[in-house]
Structure formats: structure tokens, C-alpha cells
């Protein structure tokens, strides 16, 4: 019998997995969430994503899709009569995809060293991360959300910053997103966190902080 329904293979602390949940919830789609232990991946995950073996994976009526940004676009197209995630205009779509790539490739790479360094090195990488985020911030100018009046694709791709970055900052003893340096982004954090589907899914802050603190200790000791 053909498999029916929607499954999401994710991990409670994964920013990539949460994007998929936000997209599905905006569309009002019911799904089964499977929380993976990444140190002990399930047979199902490995069967559905043999190529990269990573979360998230969306399984729709038995057919798997991997890569979170690919999944978000899929959700938008498969449930095209629901909430519009991608902009309608091709040029706006290109801009959204461009900035998503920029955030994923450049901003994430600039932020990671904040987590793994201390002292003067950390101060330097914080400045580098701020420069990167300032560039991303230009996509927010004059708008409530990256998507305009309502959240869209780019908000879903970078939205994890709103919850995760303050936690990473606390675990690392650094401050990256401040009112002085990144006023638009900081204001957007508050607006994004107030969105219903976001509030319903965020991982517990204390648990996330404990995980990040432990990970940082591990990395610094190595």
C-alpha cells in the first residue's frame, strides 16, 4: 500500500530542520516529526537520504526530499494554494534566493568562529560576523520582514538567527547583534519571534544553551 502523509526527519536543535516545520505550518499541513539522534541515525533516515545522510528530510507520500532550502521551495510549490512563501515576481525570487545563499555560505561561516574562539581572536571574528550580517541587513531596509509585510522564504532561511544567535552569544561570551551595530536585524528578531508558527516550534532555550555551552567547552579543549 502506498505510503501517505508527510514526515519530517529532524533534530530538536537543528536550525535547518526547523525551517521545514515553519514552512509546513504556514501552509497548515499536518506532519509527523521524527527526532533523530545524529550519533545513531535511524535506518529510515539513511534509506530516505543515502546521499548526504543528513537532516532534515521531508517525506511526502513516501517520496523523500533532502536539503532544507530545496524542501522549503518544494513545500511552497506542492501546496501552492496555501500561504505564499516565495515572492511572486521572478526578480524578487532571484533576490530572495541570492540572499539565502549569502546567509548560508558567508554569514554562517562568519558566525561559526565566534563560537570557537576566545579573547582578541574572538573580538576580531565578531567584527567580521557583524560586517557580514550588515550586508544581509540591507535586504531588510524599509520592510517589516525580508519577505515584505509578511514572512517569506528568506525569513524562513535566516529566521533561526533570532533564537539561536542570542544563545550562541551567551554560550560564547560575545555580543554580535546589538542595537548599535545591527538595529534593523535586532528589530526583525523580535517581530519574527512573535510569529505564531515560530513560537510554537522553538526549541527550549535552556536546553539549547546547555548544549551549546558543552559543545564550546569540547571545541576549546581540543
Amino acid at each position, binding site marked *: 500500500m502506498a505510503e501517505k502523509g508527510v514526515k519530517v526527519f529532524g533534530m530538536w536543535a537543528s536550525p535547518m530542520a526547523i525551517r521545514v516545520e515553519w514552512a509546513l505550518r504556514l501552509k497548515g499541513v499536518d506532519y509527523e516529526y521524527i527526532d533523530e539522534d545524529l550519533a545513531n541515525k535511524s535506518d529510515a533516515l539513511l534509506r530516505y537520504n543515502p*546521499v*548526504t545522510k543528513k537532516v532534515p528530510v521531508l517525506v*511526502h507520500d513516501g*517520496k523523500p*526530499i*533532502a*536539503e532544507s*532550502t*530545496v*524542501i522549503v*521551495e*518544494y513545500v511552497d*510549490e*506542492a501546496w501552492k494554494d496555501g500561504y505564499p512563501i516565495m515572492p511572486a515576481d*521572478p*526578480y524578487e*525570487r*532571484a533576490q530572495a*534566493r*541570492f540572499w539565502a*545563499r*549569502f546567509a548560508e555560505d558567508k554569514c554562517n561561516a562568519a558566525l561559526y568562529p565566534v563560537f570557537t574562539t576566545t579573547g582578541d581572536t574572538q573580538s576580531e571574528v565578531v567584527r567580521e560576523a557583524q560586517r557580514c550580517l550588515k*550586508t544581509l541587513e540591507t535586504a531588510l531596509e524599509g520592510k517589516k520582514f525580508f519577505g515584505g509585510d509578511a514572512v517569506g522564504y528568506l525569513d524562513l532561511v535566516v529566521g533561526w538567527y533570532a533564537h539561536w544567535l542570542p544563545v550562541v552569544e551567551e554560550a560564547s561570551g560575545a555580543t554580535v547583534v546589538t542595537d548599535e551595530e545591527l538595529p534593523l536585524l535586532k528589530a526583525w528578531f523580535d517581530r519574527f519571534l512573535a510569529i505564531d508558527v515560530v513560537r510554537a516550534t522553538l526549541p527550549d532555550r535552556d536546553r539549547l544553551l546547555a548544549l551549546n555551552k558543552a559543545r564550546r567547552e569540547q571545541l576549546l579543549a581540543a
Partner: protein
Amino acid sequence: MAGDELKLLGAWASPWVSRVQIALHLKGLNYEYVEEDLDNKSDLLLESNPVHKKVPVLIHDGKPICESLVIVQYIDEAFASTGPSLLPVDPYERAIARFWAAFIDDKLLVPWKQAFSGKTEEEKDQGRKQLLAAVETLEGGLMECSKGKPLFGGDSVGYLDVVLGGLLSWLHGTEALCGVELFDAGRTPLLSAWAERFGALDAAKAVLPDVGKLVEFAKMRRAQLAAAEAAAAAAAAKKN
């Protein structure tokens, strides 16, 4: 038709630019091509792509679009009623195509670069191994997407054919540049056949640079960068 001015800022050796040119060719779109000197970038390039300052940049009626995969999708969407569709119609098939495009840019090209310009023989060797593993995985991807037909897009050229095809001259140069043959008819028969078929397309013949010329250029560039790095290292050592 008024209001459909296309200008492409590119560089002859760039596979990312080739992707865009192939897409434009397949769609039958006219455009002005501007060859950039990447050591002396034009004001137009710097203004149109202030974030990365890289080619390709497609300028459509004065509005710039950057990043090759973004540009190819833009061409497909903005000119949906012109020429063939590059991405499949079905959402699931579109997702599969996008997945493999990401795989090509993330998992194939990173080890390729390492095999090409790794600092030590050990590093290069690691790159070669990972590259061959990635190509074998891509062979599976081709099988999945093509469903027994000659191209990733099936009977006709699709998005994924353009994404990989733009790299074809560089891929053919892999043996000369990285010391390993990429498309071996024994190991990856589908990809080897695909390379032949894609290379024979009008768009490929019109756009792709000559492999010999490219290999010569890449070797020269690699030597230039290595010399620059050695000079910088020597200068730093003198300071200390």
C-alpha cells in the same frame, strides 16, 4: 521587444558564466556579452555585484541578478513563455533537480579544487578520492533523474544538464589539472555518455571554451597564485 534588454558580464574561462550562456542559448534569448578582466573589474561589475564582485552577472532591463544557479532559475522563470522550460513542471522532480544542483556545487567542486590546488600531495590525493566518490554518487543521481533517457532532463536538456554542462570543459580538463580522469566509461558509464551527448549540443558547442586553452590558462593561474602566496609567506617570515 522593448523592455527586454539583457546584458551578461562574464569571463571566457568561467564555468559559472558558461552555465548562464548555455541557458540563454537554449531559451533563444539575445543578449549583449561583456568580457570582464577579472584583474581589473569594470565599474559596472562592481556596482552590479557589490556583495561578491564576481561574474556572472545578468543585467535585465538595468536590474542585476547574481550567482549562476540563481540566474539560470531566473531566466527560466522570467522568460517562461520563451523557448523550452529548464526546470521540470512537477514539484517533486524540481526538488530532485535542485538537490543535485546543490550536490554538484557543494560536494563535487570542493574536492575538485582541493585536487587541483591542494598545498601538499597528500591534500591533493584526498581531494581526488573525494572527487571520485562524488562522481560515483552523481552517476546514481543521473540514473534517478534521467530514468533511462540520455539527459538529466530526460529527452530534453534541463536545469541539471545546464548546471553540470556549464562545467564540461573544466571537467574534461580534470585529468590534466587534477591527475585523475573524471568520466571513466567503466566506472561511470552514464555520465560518460552524458558528457558526449551534452558536448554535441549546439548550445554547448557555441558556448564552452576549448579544453586545451582552458587547461593552459588554469595551469598558468595556479602557478601565479602559488607564486603570490610564496612571496607573501617570505615577506611575512622576514618580518618575524
